[in-house]
């Protein structure tokens, strides 16, 4: 017999988790389930929550101070335009409430400029508290610390780059050995684990805790700076305590610079979201792909070619080779974009692999890209085109299924990388799709 739910969310990234949380919030009695396959792309992501950093089509205008100002002018079909700017604010407020004091930035509508591990700055709406003391608009001088064994962050270069970007403070970088790291290619999670557990490490002065050893290494290099930035490896489960201990020992504020994958800030956000899902009683089934689906009236689908009245009756997930049907009243598709494989391609076509929803794209794959690596790439906009209720539309602009909504990067019509809007779109569309799914299911 099929597993029965009111709302079934497919995909466990920021959009899927938000959709499931929003559904549980909108209809507290509803049975909400989230099924995920692979690790979410959150571990690739910086952990910053961007709403809109640059106006689409006008990058020369520089970073937007107020992202909400620009929401009204977005082109038709942009996910923000689909859900409306009020929903974006609601979704962000919902996020703020969900993550509590783990994130900062809600005291103002203005974007923050956060230093990145490449040494530039990027506009974002919310940032982990771990990054809060690193803001580039803060004019306190900063010392950046890199580690000899961590080639992703060259602190002296990042400091020089921040100055080239015009940051209103003096930045200096030093590179030091990380106490307790003996392997030259230890994973970033190893650094975090050492600090989380304050493991005993050998130093010139004998055995001491990793936090103290690190602080001692840095204190010798401080030259009056009032804040110190590290690559984002300062603990995982006990990151707040690690940062507080370092700040105490150094007598200065301590912050993290967001990093590339695997990204601890991304993983910490994932943990926060999954904690919230558990609190709200959302059932989570992970490690299983959705491999097939059935509609309520399979014959009718074939006959009318998809009129928008078709309903998904059930999906089939593959659990270690066993096909398990899951039936729900409403479905949310949040499987990600090209990176998360919610949108896939072959030499001749671009497609959505579960429901085969329509993905608008040029026929010739040489029209999918432009010649400049950072140019205006059509592939960056690949994804489903939804109606204002976030139901994916077919080639004739009719909803593919009456009870399917889509959220996050599986949606098309926006270039999250150029706009710096990825997290915001996932939040806003996840929130709207989850809320509507729950309300309609009632």
């Amino acid at each position, binding site marked *: 017999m099929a597993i029965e739910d009111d709302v079934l969310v497919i995909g466990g990234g920021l959009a899927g988790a938000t959709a499931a949380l929003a559904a549980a919030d909108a209809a507290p009695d509803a049975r909400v389930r989230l099924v995920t396959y692979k690790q979410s792309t959150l571990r690739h992501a910086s952990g910053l929550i961007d709403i809109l950093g640059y106006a689409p089509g006008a990058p020369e205008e520089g970073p937007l101070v107020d992202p909400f100002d620009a929401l009204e002018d977005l082109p038709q079909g942009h996910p923000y335009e689909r859900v409306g700017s009020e929903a974006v604010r609601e979704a962000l407020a919902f996020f703020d409430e969900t993550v509590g004091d783990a994130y900062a930035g809600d005291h103002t509508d203005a974007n923050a400029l956060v230093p990145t591990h490449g040494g530039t700055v990027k506009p974002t709406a919310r940032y982990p508290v771990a990054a809060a003391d690193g803001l580039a608009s803060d004019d306190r001088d900063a010392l950046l610390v890199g580690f000899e064994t961590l080639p992703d962050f060259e602190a002296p270069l990042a400091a020089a780059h921040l100055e080239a970007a015009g940051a209103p403070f003096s930045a200096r970088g030093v590179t030091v050995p990380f106490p307790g790291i003996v392997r030259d290619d230890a994973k970033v999670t190893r650094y975090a684990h050492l600090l989380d557990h304050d493991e005993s490490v050998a130093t010139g002065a004998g055995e001491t805790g990793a936090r103290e050893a690190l602080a001692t290494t840095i204190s010798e290099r401080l030259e009056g700076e009032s804040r110190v930035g590290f690559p984002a490896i300062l603990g995982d489960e006990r990151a707040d305590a690690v940062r507080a201990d370092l700040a105490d020992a150094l007598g200065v504020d301590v912050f993290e610079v967001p990093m590339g994958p695997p990204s601890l800030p991304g993983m910490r956000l994932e943990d926060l979201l999954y904690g919230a899902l558990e609190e709200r009683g959302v059932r989570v089934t992970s490690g299983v792909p959705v491999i097939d689906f059935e509609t309520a009236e399979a014959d009718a689908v074939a006959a009318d070619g998809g009129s928008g009245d078709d309903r998904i009756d059930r999906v089939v997930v593959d659990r270690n080779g066993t096909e398990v049907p899951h039936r729900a009243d409403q479905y949310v598709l949040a499987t990600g974009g090209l990176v998360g494989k919610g949108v896939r391609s072959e030499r001749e076509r671009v497609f959505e692999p579960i429901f085969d929803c329509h993905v608008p794209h040029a026929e010739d794959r040489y029209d999918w890209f432009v010649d400049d*690596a950072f140019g205006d790439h059509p592939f960056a906009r690949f994804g489903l085109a939804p109606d204002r209720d976030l139901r994916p539309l077919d080639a004739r602009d009719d909803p593919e299924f009456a009870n399917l909504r889509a959220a996050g990067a599986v949606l098309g019509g926006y270039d999250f990388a150029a706009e710096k809007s990825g997290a915001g779109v996932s939040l806003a569309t996840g929130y709207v799709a989850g809320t509507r799914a729950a309300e309609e299911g009632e």
Partner: protein
Amino acid sequence: MATDTEVLVLGGGSTGCGIARDLAMRGLEVTLVERGNLTDGTTGRMHGLLHSGGRYAVSDRASATECIEENEILREIAGHCVEETGGLFVQRPEDSDDYFREKLEGCRDCGIPARVLSGREAREVEPYLAEDVKRAIEVPDGAVDPFRLCVANALDAETHGARIETHAEVVDLLRDGDDVYGVEVRHESGPGKRIHDAAGTTEEITAEYVVNATGAWAGQIGAMADLEIEVRPSKGVMTIMNVRQVDTVINRCRPKGDADIVVPHETTAILGTTDEEVADPDDFPEDQWEVDGMIDTLSELVPILEEARTIRSFWGVRPLYEPPGTGTQDPTDITRDFFLLDHAERDGVSGISSIVGGKFTTYRAMAEEISDHVCEKLGVRASCATAEEPLPGSEDIATLEAGMDDFGLRSPVARRSKQRLGSRASEVLETDAANPVICQCEGVTRAEIRDAIDQSGSDLNAVRIRTRASMGNCQGGFCCQNMANELHPEYDEATVRASLDELFQERWKGQRHALWGEQLSQAMLNYALHATTMNRDRDPANEPTAIDFADFDGGA
């Protein structure tokens, strides 16, 4: 008249670098100038096949014989650049039995070890061969790293006193009446190593003799001194797969045709190629059908190629030449032999010769012949030693593995490093400093990157060809930034940023022809990491308008 150098070699490909090494080893004073990086022209754009000669065993037996001789020499003197994969000439049911027999006889007549395998035996060697493959001829084809080999020649030339000047474009030949006595070069702007002159300046370099080894560009150089050199540049596409579907070289056993070879190369396999004459070696169309046609045709031999992940495609230009009056219509019919054009004999202009035609596998023999010619012109009596003296990195290669520890590296990383560095491994990898892996796909550590920077300066593409960093699955998405980090603090922030941008764009260029499936997914991830996480697409340091930081959130 005193000259700056005895011999001036134009062109930093395999031929030019081979000539520079040969002459420098004979004790001559040599200067080599190259427009871009070493290997930038044809050498860096080949499929990496070390010919056994089997390919020419029917059509061109002189070339075939020369190939097998040079093949054996390169295994000896350049072991760290060669992988002895072996090769198969594979016959499909529709391919001619007569040709198969001619190929086998040709190989044997030319001294190429050749053995016939049944279809079943061939599939035991290469399990992904098509089920209906009839039989195959096994020959000693190999894979060679053209970057590593070319750079090793240049390094050895330098060791013997040569000046190797990259990023120096010849803008004029210096001619006095009927005598060419040097060139004018422009030192290019850009992040590369500058040994003698600042970017944007020009320099006249005079020489007793000039050797034009610019391959497909030889005609353009000749035109600067009103010399007509009828090279016929012919383009060919190659597509790189992300894994090795085959571990031996797979050739299609038929007379000629596009898309008939798969070469396993390091972590990849390279599909090749097409053959189409072009007017300008710097400007020709790179067409989608060429890539698609190659995948489709080679899938007849190795069916899984149809579904496999490609990581990029690139086009090379052959420096084909045929003596005037031959009138061959089809570029595939033009001989792969090389020609030495003595312009004094041919055109009445002294002081210069041009080298045209030829192929990578026989670069050393070409260099020897040309060097003999130059020595004769200059009245120098010195003999060639390049067939016996190993290249840097290949000395004592047989005893290398036994006598060397792994430098504290994980074993796959150490193995790859040793393959690349050969006998230079100890010198490069023995360090007390932290030596983390910079490029995960290819297992390249900091020590190797820094060694390449020492050799080539801040040009990350020069670092790339020396180390293979950024040439794997992610095509630099994960490691470009880290490679650039290694330039600092030797090079300042602005130089590092420019170098990174240049490498990132170069890596993008070839990927454009592989943008579907897994590689499109990878491209989107790379774009997201560099644009979203690092904001490199809108880097405020590159923007004309300064940000007013005070307008933004400064913290609660």
